[in-house]
């Protein structure tokens, strides 16, 4: 699995993805790692099928006992169906995830890890030296869903928002926004149900200082492409399945 450091300051952000060993017909996912000297958080650690590649890739950056926290933006299998395996590898870790999904996510197998239910209005994840803001993103697409904002690194982990369906081995960053649109249009129109939720999110996120918008599928947006994405998303009609 490919690992790319996207922020290297007092703490680090690494994105993992483009797993060449991923079985066919499984959607490619981006997993993120945020590490501080004493704590490491994995954002949307992924599905059961990529667990081995993911753990192996992560261990190139931190040791197992440094991984203290997991975050699942919502309940989808591509986000957290690996939980039953993490549960045996990181018995002392915490899983931060929407309260709404606790009783559902436990179906993936959670015997040791502590489930920290996130209230609807968000709050923070405290990693000691670093505090991360939880940005509610309900109904985008999941009815209980959060983004993670790091004001120091100016990175917004946006989960399924900004996601694109790409060919295998696509580059990590958007290099031409207009060419990127066809790869993300259907994803947002069909998987996102609510224009009201979408506009509410866009309005709130516009107030954040964002250098990097990091989705769970497809390429990452940098610099001016972040604003281009927000403008494009605001104008898009979603919920087109009916």
């Amino acid at each position: 699995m490919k690992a790319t450091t996207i922020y290297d300051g007092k703490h680090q952000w690494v994105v993992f993805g483009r797993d060449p060993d991923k079985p066919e017909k499984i959607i490619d996912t981006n997993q993120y790692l945020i590490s501080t000297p004493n704590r490491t958080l994995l954002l949307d650690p992924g599905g059961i099928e990529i667990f081995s590649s993911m753990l192996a890739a992560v261990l190139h950056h931190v040791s197992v006992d440094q991984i203290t926290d997991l975050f699942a933006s919502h309940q989808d299998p591509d986000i957290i169906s690996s939980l039953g395996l993490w549960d045996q590898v990181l018995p002392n870790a915490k899983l931060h995830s929407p309260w709404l999904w606790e009783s559902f996510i436990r179906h993936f197998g959670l015997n040791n890890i502590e489930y920290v239910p996130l209230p609807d209005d968000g709050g923070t994840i405290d990693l000691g030296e670093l505090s991360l803001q939880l940005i509610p993103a309900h109904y985008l697409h999941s009815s209980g869903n959060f983004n993670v904002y790091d004001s120091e690194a100016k990175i917004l982990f946006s989960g399924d928002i900004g996601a694109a369906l790409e060919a295998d081995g696509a580059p990590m960053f958007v290099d031409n926004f207009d060419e990127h649109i066809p790869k993300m249009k259907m994803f947002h129109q069909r998987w996102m149900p609510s224009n009201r939720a979408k506009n509410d999110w866009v309005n709130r996120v516009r107030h954040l200082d964002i250098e990097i918008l990091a989705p769970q599928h497809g390429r990452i947006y940098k610099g001016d492409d972040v604003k281009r994405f927000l403008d494009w998303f605001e104008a898009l009609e979603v919920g087109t399945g009916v």
Partner: protein
Amino acid sequence: MARIKNIRLAEGEVLVSVTVIAAELSEVMKIAKEISIGAKNAKAIAARAGDKARGFQPITNFIDDMARHTLKMVRQIDEEALNISRISSQEIRTNDARRRMHDVVRRVEHPSILSSFVNIVADVDARLLELNQQFDRRLDHLSELLGSINSDMRAATAISSSCRVEASRAEEFREGLSVVADNLEKAVEVIKKHVKECSSRLQHAQQLKRAINKKIKEPK
């Protein structure tokens, strides 16, 4: 033999131990690449020194070959460690499935209901056995590969002392060539340390694995 309380946690620990080996080796890969670059520099110095470093030239070729062989082994180990990690996570899942299936068998009161299920349970048992054997085979292979790096390192230690002897004869090129010997010696030490760490992880995994298998077979 390692004693374990909780099979599931022990399985997790085995998985981590083998996966860590791949990470540990990325360091070895870096050093082996440095050795290979160092050997090329040494070749250049030896060429300039001409007759004064006649004995040095074949040594540098040897160092380069060895570094390349080590790199090849590391790549194979990396691949094998990831394979084992994959088998190990499949084993955890299969074992979990097996536990749940046997639980089903215990709960069903009328054996007639189970007739179609028995085959499935037997399949899972067989698959688990197969995974277990695969795991052992690959683990053996992994320790062979580690052993092969170790013998490379033993050869390298011998080479670095011949390096020193040849360097001492090379007059004004003495210093440049001694550095080659020093660097090689340091690199070998670091690689040995990492390989030792890998071997002990491997052993730990093997011991735990045996303990798990024993515990699984114990009657409840």
